[in-house]
């Protein structure tokens, strides 16, 4: 089977460079010029590896990486012109497997690609359905789009992250503490009121009858659950 690699960079000259080197190793190269295209091509082509540039118009590499990780474990190597620690750590925290700092040599790039692919071979990449459906609610992870009762719903970034918590753990009860830590961060673990307000707002936007919620139900004294 041919190994397919998605190369994402807004500089055509750069894509050409990577493409030429990868093709000599027998890889098939697919190309995208911004983060949005990268996410779409990941859904459509299910590549074996993604080489993702950080600085791009439309959607940058960090955002694209975060989005892809919502539905896929495909190995991602970030390509960055900024080699500082903050930049590298941010990429790795968002789920990147490795990073290569520009300028780099052709041999280094090939070696990194092969190392990451070797590691990944031990487990096959998972591509879960990039969509999630529950009743009249559907979420498209690749596009970060939410549709409830047949209508597109506009959620804030925080509301979307909160909703993802429920969708990822559907059927499981989540405590207020867990939700606050995962969505807002550990320093918010005591701020129950902010969670109450946000859940109430989510229900207003998603539930058919926000007074009798069916998507996010309260389990008194335990937490919240998407059944």
């Amino acid at each position, binding site marked *: 089977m041919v190994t397919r690699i998605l190369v994402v960079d*807004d500089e055509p000259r750069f894509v050409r460079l990577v493409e030429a080197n990868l093709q000599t190793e027998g890889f098939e190269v697919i190309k995208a010029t911004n983060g949005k295209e990268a996410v779409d091509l990941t859904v459509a082509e299910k590549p074996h590896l993604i080489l993702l540039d950080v600085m791009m118009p439309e959607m940058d590499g960090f955002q694209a990486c975060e989005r892809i990780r919502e539905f896929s474990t495909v190995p991602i190597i970030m390509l960055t012109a900024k080699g500082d620690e903050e930049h590298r750590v941010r990429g790795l925290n968002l789920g990147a497997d490795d990073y290569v700092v520009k*300028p*780099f040599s052709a041999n280094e790039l090939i070696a990194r690609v092969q190392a990451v692919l070797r590691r990944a071979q031990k487990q096959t990449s998972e591509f879960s359905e990039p969509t999630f459906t529950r009743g009249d609610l559907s979420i498209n992870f690749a596009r970060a789009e939410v549709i409830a009762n047949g209508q597109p719903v506009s959620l804030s970034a925080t509301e979307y992250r909160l909703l993802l918590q429920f969708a990822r753990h559907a059927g499981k009860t989540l405590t207020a503490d867990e939700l606050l830590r995962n969505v807002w961060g550990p320093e918010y673990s005591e701020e129950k009121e902010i969670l109450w307000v946000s859940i109430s707002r989510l229900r207003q936007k998603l539930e058919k009858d926000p007074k009798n919620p069916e998507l996010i139900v309260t389990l008194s004294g335990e937490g919240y659950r998407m059944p």
Partner: protein
Amino acid sequence: MNTRKPDASSLQPNELEAVYAISRAIAETLDFDKALANIVKLARPVFIFDNAVLYLVNEKGSLEPAFARAIGRGRSSEADSAWGEVAANEAFTSGRNSLFQPDTKPEADRLQQRFYLGLPMLLSGKCIGALVFIRFGGPPFTKEQIHLAEFIAAHVTQVMEHKRLVDRVANLEAERRLTRMQSEFIATVSHELKTPLGFIKGYSTTLLRKDTHWDAATQLEFLAIIDEETDRLTELVDNLLDSSRLQSGTFDVEFRSVDLASLVEENVGRLQSRYPNLNIHWKTKGSDYLVEGDPKRLGQVIDNLLGNAAKYAPNSPVQISMESSVDQVKLSIQDSGPGIPEEDLAYIFRRFFRSAGTKDKVRGSGLGLYICDQIIKAHHGEIHVKSAKGAGAEFIITLPRQKLPQPA
């Protein structure tokens, strides 16, 4: 330290009204001198005084006058009048009111009988200065009047604190702007330097790979990229050097007689080899385009403007027009590309400025137009831009005409 808060309950209705008016006056203005002048004016009908002086503590810890008004008797004595420094110092060092009231002698000169009331300006336990009221020939300050004066001093303190905070915020804002511009510059420059370096490194190591063979066409393709990226790096380094020379005033311009038309022609030719699809239209009025100038520097300007048209307005025809008159030569370079947003027009000749809309799409350092502007200025000419979003951009240069020495 006097920590007693002024209490409004003991004030007379007209005094209370004056105090309210003072509060309003303070709330409505950010102008410190105006606010103080207003306070003096509003206080005057309910509180008699001849001179009022505000002293503020300076960086050495001593008092310095910051505001003074002479409104009653003694205006005529000017600098010889009494300005209450002793009362101010005492109020400032003790943190309490200071009162100096002479024994009244009816036969003596009123101007020599000075009554001083010094009030400390206390702000969260710290004394920031003192306010002094002076009366010539009395009457002595009563307890109620002192109380009213405390109110006024408290308000003045608020004004001062407000002013201090406003100044501080303005300073911090300015510092922050500078830091941001510097760090944006470093980020832009390092990105701009690293991009061509990345290509040079990437393509040369690709060609150097021992484990693979590239056909001749591919080798040429890669070498051409390395060559172009090296030029780009050189250009960027030159721009950086020019920009810093312009900043330090060591930018050299060598004047001689230049035919602007042939200079434009040369640059067009060079640019067309770089951008083969570039579509250029010429329009000239007049025939003599000689100016006094530095051909290298003027060429740099033309190259930059044409290059911008090719970069920012790809596939758009470029119209070059030239016009000469007795005393000047005018050159216009116009594209019909996406144009420059109106809000950016005032900034595009500034060092490091880049339009938000194109910053991520077109590579550049924010130095080119700054350098153009500076070069044209060094030629005693003018450069300006006409543009609107979606309506293309036109750069117009006017250079003073060469004054050829008449043959004898």
